């Protein structure tokens, strides 16, 4: 599909065409000798952080962007926000070229980074919000209304969390305040780079719910990276998997599971213990713990295997589930690595990447 075209006739929020980024990095050997050599005769090498990435994101779509550390997720995100200039390829966000950093685009996008903060450390978050309101030209009354609205959803109090110096807030409270600061101008495209990083389960859920609600209310497009698969499964119907700078999968989350986890997990609790050998007739036995066991069964064989289990044994409880998504992604990476070893010159996006429906 040509970049800029749309699947359903509407203009995509994000169009990325054959995007690449190569960094020139200086290598330094450890120790004093390495430091001296680094100072006198610097050796550089090129790192291809992103290689020929293609991507189209529609308005209102929430896309999970998966990849290991150093896979190129953040570099892509930074090129999409105009922070890093591409070495090659084309990026269009809401019809603008991000690297030009036009105010018309900047008013409509936002970036949240789990490991960096924009709030002023020594001052109450409310002061940073007032500053952001002025920068985005939001009238005082409207800024107050939006702040109250966002705070209510996130469970923040204007006279509590917003009035305390940021340094005194917990990590979860801080991230919630960061979200308010990032969304005060009602952006149409959200770039969320590990927004739940380091948060406890409750705060993760709150942030996740908030993002889902904002997406539903404002029809905003969201590109989300996270190492917490719960974020991805809760918010994203579509995932894009990047590995070593190339996209290896782009499609529905369910397809990812089907393709890379062709077996489902059958967890069964029996009335009486049955050994691994006795259960091996139904599938691959992953674990047996007394009366409980976990089996891996090919998708197509699940109904038959479950039927036989139910008729052969007294079953107390039985659940069938897909393999955890992080395991699925790990398999994809392993597959991609194996393919990379045999097809070192495979063009970008070839192989596992598949066109979107």
């Amino acid at each position, binding site marked *: 599909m040509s970049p800029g075209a749309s699947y359903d006739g509407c203009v995509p929020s994000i169009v990325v065409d054959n995007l690449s980024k190569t*960094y020139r990095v200086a290598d330094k050997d450890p120790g004093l000798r390495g430091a001296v050599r680094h100072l006198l005769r610097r050796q550089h090498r090129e790192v291809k952080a992103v290689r020929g990435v293609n991507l189209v994101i529609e308005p209102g779509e929430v896309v999970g962007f998966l990849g290991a550390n150093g896979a190129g997720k*953040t570099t892509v995100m*930074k090129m999409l*926000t*105009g*922070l*890093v*200039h591409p070495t090659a390829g084309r990026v269009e966000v809401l019809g603008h070229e991000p690297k030009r*950093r036009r*105010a018309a685009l*900047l*008013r409509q*996008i*936002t*970036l949240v*980074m*789990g*490991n*960096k*903060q*924009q709030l*002023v450390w*020594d*001052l109450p978050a409310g*002061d*940073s919000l*007032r*500053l952001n309101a*002025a*920068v*985005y*030209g939001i009238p005082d009354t409207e800024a107050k209304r939006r702040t109250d609205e966002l705070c209510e959803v996130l469970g923040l109090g204007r006279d509590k969390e917003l009035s305390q110096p940021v340094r005194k807030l917990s990590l979860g409270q801080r991230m919630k305040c960061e979200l308010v600061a990032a969304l005060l101008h009602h952006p149409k495209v959200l770039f969320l*780079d*590990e927004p739940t990083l380091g948060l406890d389960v409750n705060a993760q859920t709150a942030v996740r719910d908030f993002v889902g609600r904002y997406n539903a209310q404002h029809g905003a497009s969201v590109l989300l990276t996270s190492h917490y698969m719960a974020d991805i499964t809760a918010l994203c119907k579509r995932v894009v998997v990047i590995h070593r700078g190339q996209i290896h999968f782009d499609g529905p989350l369910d397809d990812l599971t089907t393709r890379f986890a062709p077996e489902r997990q059958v967890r069964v609790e029996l009335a009486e213990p049955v050994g691994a050998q006795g259960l091996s007739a139904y599938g691959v036995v992953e674990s047996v713990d007394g009366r409980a066991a976990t089996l891996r069964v090919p998708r197509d064989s699940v109904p038959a295997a479950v039927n036989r289990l139910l008729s052969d044994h007294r079953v107390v409880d039985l659940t069938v589930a897909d393999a955890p998504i992080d395991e699925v992604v790990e398999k994809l990476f392993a597959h991609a690595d194996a393919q990379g070893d045999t097809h070192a010159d495979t063009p970008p996006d070839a192989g596992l990447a598949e066109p979107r429906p």
Partner: protein
Amino acid sequence: MRRYFKTLGLFWAVSVSAEMAYRTNFLITSLTTLLTLAGALFTIGLLFQNGHTPGGYSWPAALTVLGVYTLLDGLQQSLLAPNRTALTEHVRDGTLDFVLLKPVDAQFWMSMRRFSPWGLTDVAAGLGLLGYAGWRLEISPLGALSGGVAVVLGGVILYAVGFMLATLTVWFVKLYNITIAMAALLEAGRYPIQAYPAVYRTFFTAVLPVAFMTSVPAAALRGEAGAGWLLGLAVVSGGLFAASCAFWRFALRFYTSASS
């Protein structure tokens, strides 16, 4: 434009709020300013002992140079140095990302975001010196006006040179010595340019624009700067400001942002 003024007001209000807690710092800074000023007055006083007039400068005329220097030093401490430091920190921490994503001019943000009230004592001392020297020299209102414009242009030179040096952090990340380098550069303008030997005079005029930062604005205040010097001041100031904008835009093409 109104949005920029409102933003600027909030920038400074936020900065001053953050500094308010440190009252001891304020006292120490004020004391340092007064001692430094006393030291400078003593040094200049030595030069003018026994009716000596170095470079043809009278005592109050030399005070105009010291006054402009002290004023610019205050500007440097209040506005220029804190923002240069902030730029270095933003590049190192990767939080420049947030600045670049705001719909305001990033150079405006990185030049005005921080304001430290501690340099205001120098600004007040500089204005006091200029007021005293102006009274002694009977400077006309027109001279004061043209001198004021010239001082602003001198400040623009100081800003532009410092901002270009700070912009280098995009490539080199750690450049904490910029503040020292800029203080040394301005320091050279503490005394009348005519007091220096010819070689230094040429260097501080043609290579480093020190003369244009203090001596020329001070001469403009006294009504002694020729049209050529004033034009030169305007050209150097405008040129360096334009260069700082162009260099900043150029540097951002190489900004890689700290990795996550």
